């Protein structure tokens, strides 16, 4: 009985699901979080990728071949992300992988794909060190190191001289954002008066905020996902922080949910963003319109970045002239592209070259607008 079970399992593993590979498609994989507690990010990214796929496959690549995109779910779990990468490479024979969603997934997946020389393009991995994993690891998402200084500059132009930093110390995203924020603040010559941490599931921040309030900083920098960021803001207002204190968000605050949860408490917060839904250029407006048409909702920054990423990969495949991973890698390093997040090229370190697309947003009445 047991033996028969194993035979069936092995058969399922060998011949199981997976797209039928037509000769004339170019296989590309993606690993995103489609289930579990962080699914919201992966689902936004998938929407962006599929919208881009529609656009790319109108003409195809390499003279008319369609891209076959296989999206695997990592559920935010390290092991499942690695399994997905191995399956995409070993079975689906993809020539490039987009994703995975989180930086810590990339730390697990990157060494595997790099070893197999498959270009891997993160669209939402902003942590320090991601592209240092190896020569095949790229990202199109601006690392926080490029965004935060722009935000801080804006703050300093408003007369901020002292800053307190609070961050969630238990997720990669927030911790690495904090590291960058601290380094950037030091570099900009701001006086850091306090550094406080909390857990990303915490709901009470009163102790940290009371301490900060007594120090009267000009600004408070928050590096955390959107939910705890909202919590911090709400409780700060309760404890009597007024408009004299400028709140500065990290990448996590760059979400329309901030307005929904924190409401008026978030008013005045500024945050740097590689993309903004209201950016007036026609490419962006077209993207927003198409996205709304296809999904009946607004795109967010993750969808926008993913939308660009697949089109960058498609452009690089054309430049490489063949569906070959190593040639694709070379091509990626030379590709320049103009996307909804602005002009794009990779640096020698395989990070986005330009922070020119960064806009500083300010929250007002539950909505982001471009900061004056």
């Amino acid at each position: 009985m047991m033996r028969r079970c194993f035979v069936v399992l092995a058969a399922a593993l060998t011949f199981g699901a997976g797209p039928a590979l037509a000769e004339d498609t170019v296989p590309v994989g993606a690993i995103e979080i489609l289930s579990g507690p962080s699914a919201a990010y992966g689902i936004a990214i998938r929407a962006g990728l599929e919208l881009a796929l529609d656009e790319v496959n109108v003409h195809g690549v390499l003279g008319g071949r369609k891209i076959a995109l296989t999206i695997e779910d990592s559920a935010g779990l390290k092991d499942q992300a690695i399994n997905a990468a191995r399956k995409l490479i070993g079975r689906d024979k993809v020539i490039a992988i987009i994703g995975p969603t989180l930086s810590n997934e990339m730390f697990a997946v990157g060494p595997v794909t790099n070893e197999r020389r498959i270009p891997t393009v993160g669209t939402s991995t902003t942590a320090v060190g991601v592209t240092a994993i190896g020569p095949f690891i790229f990202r199109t998402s601006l690392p926080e190191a490029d965004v935060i200084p722009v935000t801080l500059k804006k703050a300093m132009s408003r007369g901020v001289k002292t800053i307190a930093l609070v961050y969630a110390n238990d997720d990669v995203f927030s911790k690495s954002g904090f590291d960058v924020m601290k380094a950037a603040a030091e570099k900009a010559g701001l006086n850091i008066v306090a550094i406080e941490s909390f857990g990303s599931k915490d709901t009470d921040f009163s102790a940290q905020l009371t301490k900060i309030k007594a120090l009267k900083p000009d600004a408070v920098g928050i590096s955390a996902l959107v939910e705890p960021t909202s919590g911090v803001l709400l409780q700060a207002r309760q404890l009597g922080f007024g408009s004299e204190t400028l709140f500065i968000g990290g990448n996590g605050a760059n979400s329309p949910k901030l307005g929904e949860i924190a409401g008026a408490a978030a008013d005045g917060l500024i945050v740097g963003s590689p993309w903004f839904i209201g950016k007036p250029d026609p490419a962006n407006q077209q993207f927003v319109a198409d996205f709304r048409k296809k999904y009946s909702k607004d795109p967010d920054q993750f969808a926008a970045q993913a939308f660009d990423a697949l089109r960058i990969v498609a452009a690089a495949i054309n430049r490489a002239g063949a569906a070959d991973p190593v040639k694709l890698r070379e091509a990626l390093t030379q590709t320049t592209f103009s996307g909804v997040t602005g002009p794009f090229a990779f640096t020698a370190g395989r990070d986005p070259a330009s922070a020119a697309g960064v806009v500083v947003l300010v929250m007002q009445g539950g909505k982001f607008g471009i900061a004056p």
Partner: protein
Amino acid sequence: MPEWLDDFLWTYQNLVHALGINGLLALSMYVVLAVGQLSLGQAAFMGLGAYSSVLLTLKLDLPFLAVLPLSCVAPVLFALAIGVPTLRLSGVYLAIATIGLGEVLRAVYLNVDWLGGALGLSGIPGRAESWMIFGLLGVAILALWAVGRSAIGRAMAAIREDETAAQVMGINLARYRLGALLASAVLAGLAGALGAHSSSFIGPNEYGFEPAVTILSFALLGGIGTPLGPVVGAWILTLLPEVLRGFSDLRLVFNGVIIVLAVLFLPEGLLALRMRRHAA
């Protein structure tokens, strides 16, 4: 080796490793359940093994075969610290204390800079080979099987069935319970070290409450009549999300339901096997 086989093995290497490592974890739960205790510290022990082994590899660059045995040291010390005070109390206290241990360790990993904080430790060389993982799993199964079919195994079974009667048989409850917890810590520590050295990255959130419960569901699905049961349970629950697409969404629901059903209806587990408890 033909190319397709090479590809096949490469594709499923991580899954194959996970089967072995989860098998070891299931055994580490088995030894504790086998003396009628419940510990939710397996994930914490695994984390200690993982972190300590990675530090030995990255900072001291010791060879992996030296790292592996050393990775048991920290879990064993923590098992002693948790076990000595709580094992004389009712079983509930061990369960709670081990949950507490997991949280304390998580806070330590997050707040100590040279443990990487939330970023964890990355760049771990992939030194865990399949033969090591399955060799250790095989040795563990054989050893536990041998122990099961001996006076020690009879004592463990007696404790699980009726603590008072076992005591009157001359069995020192505390000694067996502590011994089981230490064996559990060793197995989990090894699993942690092997897991860390086959996935290049470890982070503090991998060793929390949910993995601990998942390990429990391995053991309860397979049943604890023999050491094979938990291993098979672990294999089923490791393969299922790979075979059934879309299952991953409900993975934890499924694990939870398994525990409920096993406790209420199938106390012997899916494989209601029992082993002979003597060797002559």
